[in-house]
């Protein structure tokens, strides 16, 4: 038997971890924007390392079970009619103690980092200079309120490398906030305010989705998170605080659209600063600056906006928005106006 130094073992352990991490990352990183295996925040990173540890231990335990299984079924047993069985033992105290204590030790190895991570990831108070954002989950869209008064719908912008504290509230049913690359999910429960705290470490765009079944269009309750550099975030924030970028020039298609909007039932539910005061649906003041619409279901293109306004139920069954039944030219004008709201 070869004696290995403890060093060799730790090298093997590290090598296995690296191999598994590479294997996992290799088949998941590209083309899977909702992967849980490409952490882009401290929270997601903690979960990831715990995850890899447990996966390794699970794999070892599975290998032991499979090895014992194969030996029992194919090696250390006979088939009926063959020579007498090799063993009729029906108990063995040593073995039984071993397979009670063995798993117990493994679980101890898992539980210590588990509990450390649980406490680390749920700080009771917000970290210093954290950006505290209120998240309202509605059936079926997301609303984000910033402390300086800025509002956003279905597209959350946050600065990189700054602690973020989300305060999650629901005015209707239970939802769950989940951006896999930024960490685990947290339910949004009516009547209580849940918190999610993390620091995003890599700029980028990360899709998220409601993860608790919340009714008919649960599948269509998506959103995007933009992790911006500090400067970009400041710029975006400033733009949000201001009204619409510019009022459309008269005689333009967009200015016709502005009239259509002002006379339409849209104003009951949607706000455009200075024009309407509705609050039931998303704020449209900066609609044109968003990349998606209908809670992340469609790309924000004029065709898609028209499609959405014509028949919201087709895109998002159960949505509260009624079909507007506008004639073609008016619809086009309205779309042009909305797209101009940068």
């Amino acid at each position: 038997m070869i004696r290995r130094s403890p060093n060799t073992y730790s090298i093997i352990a590290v090598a296995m971890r690296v191999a598994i991490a590479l294997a996992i990352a290799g088949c998941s990183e590209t083309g899977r924007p909702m992967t849980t295996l490409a952490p882009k925040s401290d929270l997601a990173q903690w979960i990831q390392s715990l995850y890899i540890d447990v996966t390794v231990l699970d794999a070892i335990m599975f290998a032991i079970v499979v090895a014992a299984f194969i030996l029992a079924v194919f090696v250390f047993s006979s088939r009926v009619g063959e020579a007498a069985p090799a063993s009729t033992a029906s108990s063995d105290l040593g073995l039984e103690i071993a397979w009670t204590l063995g798993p117990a030790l493994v679980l101890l190895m898992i539980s210590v980092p588990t509990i450390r991570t649980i406490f680390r990831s749920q700080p009771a108070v917000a970290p210093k200079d954290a950006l505290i954002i209120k998240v309202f989950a509605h059936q079926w869209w997301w609303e984000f309120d910033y402390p300086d008064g800025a509002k956003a719908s279905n597209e959350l912008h946050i600065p990189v490398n700054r602690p973020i504290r989300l305060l999650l509230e629901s005015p209707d049913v239970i939802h769950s906030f989940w951006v896999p690359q930024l960490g685990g999910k947290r339910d949004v429960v009516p009547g209580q305010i849940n918190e999610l705290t993390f620091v995003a470490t890599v700029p980028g765009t990360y899709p998220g989705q409601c993860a608790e079944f919340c009714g008919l269009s649960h599948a269509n309750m998506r959103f995007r998170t933009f992790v911006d550099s500090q400067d970009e975030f400041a710029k975006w924030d400033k733009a949000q605080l201001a009204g619409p970028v510019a009022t459309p020039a008269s005689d333009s298609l967009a200015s016709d659209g502005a009239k259509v909007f002002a006379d339409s039932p849209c104003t009951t539910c949607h706000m455009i600063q200075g024009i309407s005061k509705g609050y039931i649906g998303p704020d449209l003041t900066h609609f044109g600056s968003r990349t998606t619409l209908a809670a992340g279901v469609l790309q924000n293109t004029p065709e898609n906006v028209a499609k959405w306004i014509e028949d919201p139920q087709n895109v998002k069954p159960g949505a509260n928005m009624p079909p507007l039944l506008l004639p073609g030219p008016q619809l086009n004008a309205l779309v042009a106006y909305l797209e101009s709201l940068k």
Partner: protein
Amino acid sequence: MAAQPKLLPVHQPSYLEGGGIVGWLTTIDHKRVAMMYLASALFFMAFGGLEAMAIRVQLWTPDNHALSAATYNAFFTMHGTTMIFLVVMPLLLGFFGNFMIPLQIGARDVAFPRLNALSFWLALVAGILLHLGWIRGGLPDAGWFGYANLTERYFTPGLAIDWWVVGLLVSGTSTVLTGLNFLTTIITMRAPGMTYMRMPMFMWSMLVTSILILIAFPALTIGLIFLLFDRFFDTHFYIASAGATPILWQHLFWLFGHPEVYIMALPAFGIISEVVPTFSRKPLFGYPMMAYSICLIAFLSYGVWGHHMFATGMGPVADSAFAITSMLIAIPTGVKVFSWIATVWGGSLRMTTAFYFALGMILEFTIGGLSGIMHASAPIDLQQTDSYFVVAHFHYVLFGGVMFAILSAFYYWWPKISGRMLGERIGKWHFWLTVVGFNLTFFPMHFLGMWGMPRRTYTYGADMGWTHLNQLETIGAFILGIAFLLFYINIFKSLISGERAPADPWDGRSLEWSTPSPPPAYNFATIPQIRGRDAWWILKYGRAGSRGVAAYMAGRPPSQPLPSEPASVEHIHMPAPSIFPLVLSLGVGMMGLGLIIDWYRIVIMGVAVVVLSVIGMGFEYPNFGEESHDPEHAPSSGGIDVRKIGVWSFIGSECVFFASLISTFIVYKSRSVTGPGPEILNIPLTSFSTFILLMSSLLMVLALAATQRGDTRWERIWLGGTVAFGLIFLCGQVYEFTSFYREGMGLTTNLFSQSFFVLVGFHGAHVAIGVLWLSVLLVAAMTGKLGKSRAMSIELAGLYWHFVDIVWIIIFTLVYLMQAVPGA
């Protein structure tokens, strides 16, 4: 095949023969009841399976429109609800449990045969109620764990959730009755010599599962009753704007829901522990550890419900506690897996389909168990919960573990049950297609979950990278569908033209193999004497070390003479059939139906049918209050009357019922937004009625003592006094409730009022039932039908009455007296 002892060559009529349609509708034979469970489970399994296939078709491509969002949501809800409540539990408990419990412990039937038939008919009514949405109001569509407050009428109007609530309430009642019946049966009706440590492991699993049912289902019942009140009577148990929290539902549901996982898994463990030793031709390895681990799993399962709720924000302390208890379950579960493998180790294996499925279960279940460890680690769970990773996990447990065990049990026990063999060739095809289809369907779900696909989404975007694995899974689902088709074909072929099964086709180890295949209605001509574990094997071969064992080792037929001549069977009196279980269940169905479609005449008719059935059943007992209906079991193996164990089991279950109500009251009493609070309670009045109720308990004791010494005069007086005091208490309660209404506190006023009225009201209902029960006894006493020999009837009513009084003391302390203490 080696060693096939020929048994009981004299022809005995099988339980399947005779009676016609009416015979089946009125049967209370545990084996016929089991067959009816089988028929209904196979029927609903086809529904649940087709729903799953439709789900997989919809997920074939991104942005698919094969199913509408509404249909998809209904299908995944009904798939889960159907498979758990109408397929897996009925198969494990109703079918295998019912059939095998009396046969394995050496009894002629279960403890309460009519109750058993009632359980079945209620289960069938529940299944029908759950599916009536096809006809009116739509199928339930809020997921199998129907999270409040989505299930409130404001968010889900219509009848769909109503069907679900009422269907599950009926189903839960049926299951609790089954648990009570099985627990009593196993405790009291074991054949002489069958100690607990000699029982087959399947009996251990049934014993512990029954206990779990009794303590887990009341939590679900309470959750559903709150929801029912919210939907029908405008209370606000789950409505945040009234101060309530929808999380209450999750606590109640998972307090039931996690033990429920083991209510399904433990019988599966029991089955594997029967099949593996039989086909390895070795005793089960580590029998005591296997029994203890079942108990430990059940115990721990009651303290882990929070791991379903890590994402709800319970806080780091609760998260850590639930993480640790959840991990602990892995230890006894690991013991089971290793012990099965050690049983195979060194065995002389007979590779039948039943054994294939058992071996398959060991590996597939291990995968599910290991991914379960990941969920126990709360931070990991936050990434995995409500994603397809969880869907993969619980299908590895419930299909790879439980369904594989069920299929193994089919191939194992079907010859005994039907008298015909299942096809082994088609069986092997069935096995391999199941393995391939199952793993192809569910293994990729681990990856989809890791790649962020949330469960319960009817559609997904093409840019998520989920398409290919979804298509692989759909292919797998169709292979699995073909496998199940083969299974159904195998069953029907066996019924029509299957090879006749000998009594003991597998050289079995437990008592059921000592009976003919199929067994006669009375199971055993003579109740066997049990000399050790693996009772039948010892009867065949003798104890270890004897000549028979040497023959067994060499694969020769046993040399020991076998009991081949049945004793005379004329002395065996089986309980008479009854139509009332069926009629009563129809009445319950009418009550549910009428409530939902808002036609109260049907409700009233249903109530009348139920009441009349109960009365009818009462008159069916020709010997009212006899010690036991089966003289061979009086007194039982425990020396205690069967009915007493039944009442104690019921009381155990009621404890959880009231504990759930009381905890809800304590949580909600000071969360009201408006309206009166605890200060409205009238302490002096209630102190008086509490005193009266306590005194009634004293009178009850005196009544029993009088009966036991044969003093009929004082028996009537004390019994009458108990009834009168009970009535005074009820009058006090009516007065209290009406005065609250006059003061403006109604059921729906606020959280305090609704949790008060529901708690105290349910207790009042229990008192009322007790008063009715005692009144019936009083009438019997007045007409001279009670006496010293029937003291047990009074003792049973007394047990219940004392329990109801003790609950009142707790309610009086926590609800009334605590309010008198400032700051409490």
